């Protein structure tokens, strides 16, 4: 337990190191989610557009 506390304290610099990794993770994950959601939405919109065109015929 104490070992873990010492580890997370990072020699007193934990307050700078962990937020660095957290900020990096948040930005990379946000880019991933935004990119994948946009691809999915466009796939759906295109499929919907095509099916509407089919039924209009």
């Amino acid at each position, binding site marked *: 337990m104490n070992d873990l506390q010492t580890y997370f304290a*990072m*020699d007193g*610099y*934990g307050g*700078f*190191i962990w*937020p*660095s*990794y957290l*900020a*990096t993770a948040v*930005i*990379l994950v*946000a*880019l*991933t989610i*935004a*990119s*994948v959601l*946009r*691809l999915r939405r*466009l*796939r759906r*919109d*295109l499929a919907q*557009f*095509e099916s509407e*065109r089919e039924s209009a015929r």
Partner: protein
Amino acid sequence: MHRFANPARFQRIADPLLPWLALATVAAFALGLVWSLVASPADYIQSETVRIMYVHVPAAWMALATYATLAVASAIALVWRHPLADIAARAAAPLGAGFTLIALVTGSLWGKPMWGTWWVWDARLTSVLILFFLYLGHIALSHAFDDPQRGARAASVLAIVGAVNLPIVKFSVDWWNTLHQPASVFRMDGPTIDPAMLGPLFAMAAAYLLFFVTLLLVRMKAELLAARLRARQIDRAMR
């Protein structure tokens, strides 16, 4: 280059690659994180804060590399009207903005304990902030026109003109007196970093690079679909 110009061929090459690239990205980040946070030593001057380097430095490298990609794609789009070049540029810009933001935020978190300040207007920090604004300008400009072709052209010009900032960022630490330290990996006389720290640094750099390639392909696929949807809508409106 022109062998990849055809969007259908692009899809045929990108689709089977994507799951493997995604897997490799996750694996590289897992390795890089364990190496950076557990399996590497503290620095004798910087103590544990050296661990911030493993997220900060590769992000800064990727911020520059992504901008170089953006500028080259823009030049190809303007000169040869390559059908995928505009799409690659538009797909790359938000990724570059993300890398630059990571470099700025983690740099600030590293600067406070080591320099005693979150921010200083030295040449390196200022030129990287300008790089961030160039990315934002590119994103805004490419969406600023109803006709996406005109937006892409305006954004391409910005990307090419803004490329003068790249050598300024890289050599700012040599040309001016900066609080930011000079290059310690890509030097004429070889790296000045201990090999125990080069391992995690390059592992994280590989992870960032794989992340960039994976998301670039995902975003290019989305841009191609958006273009197809737009063409269909125009087609229908004309009838």
